[in-house]
């Protein structure tokens, strides 16, 4: 059993092995959350790198009374949202072509279900997508999602309701019959 508080303390004191263990613990969920939010493998890798560099940079300002995972995911979600919003404003056709080819082909070829999910997730607005991703892929409660996204539980609930409905429609549009 990893003593997370001790790990954080050691990493804060400059123990890079401890920080590497922190990355080991959170790399996969952070990467997967980013991947589901931005829907691109390479971009998710870039976001994950930025997240952990920020975590390392800001470890000194982390307050132990808050849950560490909430703090890390908050950084991750903000990075992914900012990235998506920038990309949404600036995305051009050529880039879509490059991203899509470098995206699934190598690693996800043949996983039709994953393509279906990614396509449907991409079709819903980012605010709903984030809540859906935290709920279904990271299995978080309303309260945890609220802490991470910085919204009241009531708003989490309503975004989840709407997000789920939009996702249902997006999946049905893509031929998913349930």
């Amino acid at each position: 059993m990893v003593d997370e508080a001790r790990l954080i303390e050691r990493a804060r004191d400059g123990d890079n092995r401890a920080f590497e263990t922190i990355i080991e613990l959170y790399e996969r969920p952070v990467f997967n959350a980013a991947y589901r939010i931005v829907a691109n493998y390479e971009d998710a890798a870039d976001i994950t790198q930025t997240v952990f560099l920020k975590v390392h940079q800001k470890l000194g300002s982390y307050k132990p009374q808050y849950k560490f995972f909430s703090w890390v995911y908050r950084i991750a979600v903000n990075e992914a949202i900012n990235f998506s919003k920038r990309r949404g404003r600036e995305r051009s056709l050529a880039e879509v072509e490059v991203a899509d080819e470098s995206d699934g082909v190598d690693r996800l070829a043949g996983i039709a279900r994953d393509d279906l999910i990614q396509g449907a997730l991409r079709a819903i607005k980012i605010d709903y997508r984030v809540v859906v991703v935290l709920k279904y892929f990271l299995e978080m409660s309303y309260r945890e999602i609220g802490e991470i996204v910085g919204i009241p539980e009531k708003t989490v609930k309503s975004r989840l309701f709407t997000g789920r409905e939009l996702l249902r429609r997006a999946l049905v549009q893509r031929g998913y019959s349930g």
Partner: protein
Amino acid sequence: MDERLTDLMNGELDGTNSAEQSRELRSRLASDPDARRHFEQLESVGRVLAEADEVPPPESLREAIMQVVEERESRRLRAPGLLARAREFFEPRRSLRPAFAFAGGVAVGLCLFVVLSAALPHAVPGDAGRLYGTMGGRCYIDDEVRFEVTGASGTAGIRYCAESVTVGLSLESDSEVLVVLSYDEELDYDGFRAFQPGDHAMRVVGHRAELTHSGTRDYDLYFTDDTESRHPMRLSVFESGRRVFESTVPPGRE
């Protein structure tokens, strides 16, 4: 579908319904086939998401993060050492203050000369109207990253001089390649320069500089970074839309 029924459905899906609410939902769904179908689809949304495979991150990701962390650490550890050595050098020599003052005056004069020289405009092709130059500060250069893939090869290196960041690219390819430099959001792209004529195109999307290149050519890409730290960049090379190379370009050392 009324709001009460929607609330009951969502409460059931999130496991927040009471036993009584669950009973009410079941009863309403039993008498409303459309609502039942809708609820089944919502349930299946949850199932399809839950069944999605976890996607493994790139194997080299952790190593890349740790490389940057260790570079940062080594810079941080070096900095106080230099300050301490500087203090050690100057403090015992208080009697030499006039000499230091004279040397300081000469240094200021030299800096002014450098600044005024650098302020003379020289246009850069590809980004007309922008001026480039250095302030004569300390520069940091690291080893270049080299790549060699079928049909293309090249190098990339970052040079930090005060707030000016220059990425030097030397590229050679038989056919068209796309070279992508992903950089930290704290850097601002300022322009680029191609040192030889020929087909190429540069565009910036978000924090990615995308250079379409063919043939043999050198380029400089210019950025500004007004933070105190130096940032690595990610170099990716694509051939026909497929990534054939990727590496982190280190930001330079003293």
